[in-house]
């Protein structure tokens, strides 16, 4: 296996029906174990890039490799499977399913991916134990585990989302503005926790935000404006 977990070469993406491209990335790589802070204003194309990395969108041309596998060559069902096997996602806010308990939310990836389930069992004996240990590590005490997502504070919800991304040790964690709903003090605390757990799980972290102040503590920084040749209106 290569040490490059994300490799993009000559990627070009255009929304169907759009007059011009939205993303044009000549080259972009993320190495194994890196904690990369990707800075991007809204409209810089970062959301589109994340959807491409998730295999939900496919580029018109260019190479897009995740862990050495070409996403473009896969059928869409295979991409859905590959995504949950190898990537954990954390989004801005409200990213828990409201009718499931915190614990069941964390266990969701194990329901769709046998690889994540097996790795969770390997690590902690059972997927439940793995989820509980992750929740404890993220400072969520036992009393909160069975609560439904709506009964948790925004900060607690984000930590549950982080545990869900981390369960079963996927190689890549992609976080999209996960701290925007938190106050400054909690932002720092959450980022410390997230980086610590990614390091413990040996996961590569791709952290996307418009807020440059959060960049300290990451092993590398990049900006959408540098990697994407399209600027302004076309990108989204």
């Amino acid at each position: 296996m290569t040490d490059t977990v994300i490799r993009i070469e000559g990627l070009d993406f255009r929304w169907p029906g759009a007059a011009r491209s939205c993303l044009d990335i000549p080259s972009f790589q993320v190495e194994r174990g890196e904690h990369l802070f990707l800075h991007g204003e809204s409209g810089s194309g970062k959301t589109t890039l994340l959807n491409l990395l998730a295999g939900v969108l496919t580029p018109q041309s260019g190479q897009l490799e995740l862990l050495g596998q070409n996403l473009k060559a896969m059928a869409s069902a295979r991409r859905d499977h590959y995504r949950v096997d190898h990537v954990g996602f954390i989004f801005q806010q409200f990213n828990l399913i409201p009718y499931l308990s915190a614990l069941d939310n964390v266990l969701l990836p194990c329901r769709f991916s046998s690889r994540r389930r097996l790795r969770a069992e390997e690590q902690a004996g059972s997927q439940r134990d793995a989820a509980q240990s992750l929740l404890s590590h993220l400072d969520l005490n036992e009393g909160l585990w069975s609560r439904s997502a709506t009964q948790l504070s925004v900060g607690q919800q984000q930590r549950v989302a982080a545990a869900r991304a981390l369960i079963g040790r996927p190689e890549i964690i992609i976080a999209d503005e996960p701290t925007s709903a938190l106050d400054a003090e909690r932002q720092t605390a959450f980022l410390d926790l997230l980086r610590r757990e990614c390091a413990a799980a040996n996961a590569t972290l791709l952290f996307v935000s418009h807020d440059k102040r959060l960049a300290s503590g990451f092993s590398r920084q990049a900006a959408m404006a540098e990697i994407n040749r399209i600027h302004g209106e076309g990108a989204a």
Partner: protein
Amino acid sequence: MKPLLTLALKSAWNRRYTLGLTMIAVALSVTLLLGIERLRHDAHEGFAQSVSGTDLVVGPRSSPIQLLLYAVFHLGEATNNMEWSSVQAIARNPAVAWVIPLSLGDSHKGFPVLATNEDYFKYFHYGDHHPLEVAQGKPFHDLYDAVLGAEVASRLHYKLGDTIVLSHGMSGTHLTDHADKPFHVVGILARTGTPVDRTVHISLAAMEAIHIDWQGGAPIPGFAIPPQLASKFDLTPKTVTAMLVGLHSRIQVFALQREIASFDAEPLMAILPGVALDQLWDLMGVAERVLLAVSGLVVAVSLAGLVAVVLAGLNERRRELAILRSVGAGPWHLVFLLTLEGAAVTIAGVVVGTVLLTVLAAILGPWAELRYGVVVHAALPGLEELKLLGLVVVVGTLASLLPGLRAYRMALADGLTPRV
């Protein structure tokens, strides 16, 4: 698909009030559909069984349905009568086991009066070869005795010993009464669910007696024979309206039918009641099909409501669906999730609707039968009904593909970041 089942269940539970109301709408429409189907079926059954054991209905030559209408349903008026001598001639035929002569033309408060003889109580059968049962009293014996059908008695609140006056003619508002010769109620028949319930029965002799001082449909002016004196006259009928014939063996039915059709003394006709009943039912089939179509529409409307509710909920669930995608659900998982939900609500509605109808039939059935003479059985759904219910489930599931496919398109357009 297995992880999705528990998810679908929990998601549906989260929206249980909306889905519950939708389910109730489907259930009520299924109750209506099934109720109408059952009423229709029972009505057809009751109709087909309004006469049984009778091999031929014989009357003056006219149309078979007309003969059936007045001989079995006591509706309409016979244009011609048949001679009493013909009745006797047919009764003497070696193939014939029994005959019941029928004479119509009078009425009591809108209910038809049927003049016949005591063989009526012996040989007339309905339903599944049920003989008539006298619930109270006895069959007529004296000249001015009347035996009432169950509905006549219950509607007009008659009891044994009451005195009733018959009117000349079957319908209309200005009927002349046979007020000089009143009848006594001596018997009330058990309910049959057939036209017998709506009929007043008297003897053929009584029919002669009340018309003895009549001519051309009106009393002869200045000429009245008091009731006691009427019995002194010969009260053998000269004509009757029709007759029911039972044979020793059903094999002879067509031979006798032909024989009666070529009867020498007068033009007669013999019909097989089952065949004519089917023809008549076909005539009324339009109303029946309209009824079924209307209840089918009600089901369609409730299923459209179901689809609308699931579709409307889809926008609120956009984020939920996007999260499911991020943890590995493919677009087809979402189609399955939403279709499953619609199908489950439909199935629940069908089950609840069926149970509701059974409970309603069990509780209200006896009351409806007593009050309206409508028989609704509280029974498990039959094959035809199961087919109908299956159709509802299939249509509901297919309709639920609609929100499923919409979710599919949304999933492709939104990716992991719904534009809410």
